[in-house]
């Protein structure tokens, strides 16, 4: 049995550079980084020192507040460096791979109850894959969530196609669902009209939802807000399909495997296709990076600027390469036609060429101004909230209003399109994140 969810609002950003459905290489990295900064709400405690040898699945750090949450190395090898930033903040643990990829055996056993599932996830380093909502932080093992949500697909610009990347992981996915279902009911959504090509519609032991619509229809937060909106005091967890399969893999084989297919995308990627690699792999070994190109871990809306020396993050299965758009266009705003610039607004003529893909760059296309709200935010937010009121409540730091206007239901990623469409060039995601940070502080 499945439930249908048709979302009308939203926007698919027509950016050039989707990854072709082929795997062009497998990267066997020399150095792999484990980054505590990937996990929101984590205060890391280091468990290794330089020179220690680790296996794939050996813990390298833990959460200071809840030391049972471990973070493990994706490869076997030797710890070669501890990278720290300002105030000695731990930024990364570098592991030099030995090439043997020996891994810790957690024992291939289907968990019998919630406790066994939790223990396996905590030990194997996969606990960090569970995100708690509200607030989008790492899940708390002491809390039992109302439900666990998985969106099996992403509608984000140029996102990796999970039907392709997880096409042969059906057994792992099912095992992952079974394990998580011991903790709470699992809700799984898949794209409408792809029953033939997706593995997700066959999944058992989960409540299935069929979703259609433009971005952000694939965002798990948007789906939750339609399936069962989060109320004050409630907690749900989410997990990405990638990590659902990884959880299933450790259940099935007893061994941690974080290997994944990463979509190399964007107008500046020299070869738009998939690369097989591990999280923590240096991005320079995954994609060829030209000068003055920004390399983004994730998609163009929510991704992180990794920098040329960066490492692929724990959650990422996509890299986007964009040109830094520092050129200044003469009379840009006044030209009747700007064929190279996309606008979802009908003040330009992009609507004449609906199928066209654009070589987008990072130019802001304007200067920051006070809000002049037309209807643009509502048109890209398929949720039962007033985005502009929520944004203003966050700016004002008004807890009561934020609650009323739906702060529990959103993460910055759900309003990421507002960043894109805003003619006043406000940083909506940053404003929402600030609001969420304030909520965490006040509610703690």
């Amino acid at each position: 049995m499945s439930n249908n969810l048709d979302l009308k609002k939203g926007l698919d950003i027509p950016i050039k550079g989707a990854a072709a459905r082929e795997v062009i290489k497998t990267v066997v990295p020399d150095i792999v980084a484990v980054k505590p900064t990937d996990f929101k709400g984590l205060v890391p405690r280091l468990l290794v020192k330089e020179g220690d040898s680790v296996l794939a699945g050996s813990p390298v750090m833990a959460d200071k507040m809840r030391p049972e949450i471990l973070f493990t190395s994706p490869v076997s090898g030797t710890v070669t460096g501890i990278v720290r930033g300002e105030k000695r903040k731990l930024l990364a643990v570098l592991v030099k791979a030995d090439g043997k990829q020996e891994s810790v055996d957690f024992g291939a056993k289907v968990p019998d109850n919630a406790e066994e599932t939790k223990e396996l996830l905590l030990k194997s380093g996969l606990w960090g894959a569970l995100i708690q909502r509200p607030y989008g932080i790492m899940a708390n093992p002491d809390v039992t969530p109302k439900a666990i949500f998985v969106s099996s697909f992403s509608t984000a610009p140029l996102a990796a196609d999970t039907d392709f990347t997880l096409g042969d992981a059906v057994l792992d996915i099912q095992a992952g669902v079974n394990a998580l279902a011991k903790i709470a009911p699992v809700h799984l959504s898949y794209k409408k009209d792809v029953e033939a090509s997706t593995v997700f519609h066959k999944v058992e032991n989960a409540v299935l939802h069929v979703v259609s619509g433009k971005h952000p229809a694939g965002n798990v937060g948007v789906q939750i807000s339609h399936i069962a909106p989060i109320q004050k005091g409630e907690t749900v967890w989410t997990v990405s399909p990638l990590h659902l399969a990884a959880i299933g893999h450790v259940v099935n084989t007893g061994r941690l495997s974080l290997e994944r297919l990463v979509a190399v995308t964007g107008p500046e990627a020299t070869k738009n296709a998939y690369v097989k690699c591990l999280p923590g792999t240096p991005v320079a070994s995954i994609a060829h990076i030209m000068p003055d190109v920004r390399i983004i871990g994730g998609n163009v809306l929510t991704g992180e600027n990794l920098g040329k020396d960066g490492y692929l993050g724990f959650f990422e299965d996509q890299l986007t390469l964009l040109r830094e758009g520092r050129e200044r266009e003469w009379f840009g705003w006044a030209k009747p036609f700007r064929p190279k610039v996309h606008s979802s607004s009908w003040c330009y003529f992009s609507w004449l060429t609906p199928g066209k893909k654009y070589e987008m760059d990072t130019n802001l296309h304007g200067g920051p101004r006070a809000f002049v709200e037309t209807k643009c935010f509502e048109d890209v937010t398929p949720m039962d909230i007033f985005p502009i009121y929520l944004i203003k409540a966050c700016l004002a730091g008004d807890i009561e209003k934020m609650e009323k206007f739906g702060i529990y239901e959103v993460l910055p990623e759900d309003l990421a399109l507002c960043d894109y469409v805003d003619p006043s060039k406000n940083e909506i995601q940053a404003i929402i994140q600030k609001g969420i940070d304030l909520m965490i502080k006040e509610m703690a």
Partner: protein
Amino acid sequence: MADEKKTGLFEKGGKLYWLHSSIDAFDTFLRVPGTVTAKGAHVRDGIDLKRVMIMVVIALVPAALFGMYNVGLQTSTVYGLDWSFWHMFWYGLLRMLPLFVVSYAVGLAIEFASSQIRGEEVNEGYLVTGFLIPLIVPVDVPLWMLALAVAFSVIFVKEVFGGTGMNIWNPALVARAFLFFSYPSSMSGSSVWVSKTWVSALKDVDAVSAATPLAIAHEGAFDAATGAVGQYSFMDMFWGFIPGSIGETCVVAILLGALLLVWTGVASWKIMVSSVAGGLLVGWLGQLAGATTLPCYYQLVMGGFLFGSVFMATDPVTAAQTETGKWIYGFLVGALAVIVRLWNPGYMEGMMLAILFMNTMAPLIDHCVVSVHTSRRAKKALTA
């Protein structure tokens, strides 16, 4: 080379850094800034406020062009001068240029100065306001009055609130209200609507009284048989060959502008439609109640009703912001405007005050809409 020199001087630490708001304004007017995204989404839509504002200005152009022609037409007709089409247009153009120059010069000077003081970039909002003001005043308004009105509205209605986006009332309308209440003899009556300044032949001729159809109808001179208001037929009023504020007379020109605004999504069609609906409904009720003999649709073609509904009530900053709120807000604008027209002996035209009043009420409307929405959400949560 020149470029380098300029940036050095006006950049932070440069000698003329205090001027950077103004320099940035000119610089970004010519070229899109080279700023790249620092946080949030890495790519951005091509739209910016400059583009939004220029769309409104373009939408106003048909009304402005027709207004220029009509200024000449009225002078020529009323004084029996028998001018050619181009003569009328040329006369109107020359009469209007000083209004535009004063409106923009005074308004932009204040806008630049306040941006400078705040250290912010100059906002584009005044591009529209500065174009609107000359269109909603009588053509012969003395320039010093216009300058005073512009200064008052930009300083006290916009800048003290923090500039475009922060204001509560529509600045262009406040400028008009300022003139209306401070200098009523230059803003109302039957002798202000037809220009005779600058016509040497009319130097010693007394001003001829030429009342607007709205005033004529107010006196009850509506001929139900022919459908004419005084000497003006319905089609005269529809096409705009009548005395009135410069931009407000031609329905066709205004509808062209409305089409562009709705098409581009810059202004809300909901406000336009509901405002017209409110005006029609009250006009009809007034006819039933015997307050007027005018058919309700006459309310749309007379005075500033349509111009206000399309260009003034829809200002995204001062209008209601919720979609339901827009319906209510627009409806009340239209309804109030016609109520003032029909049941108020003092003012013939109610549009200006109706919009300003609803500007004041818009946040309250939004508050109610949002409260209803949040309590509905809360109830849904309890039953879920």
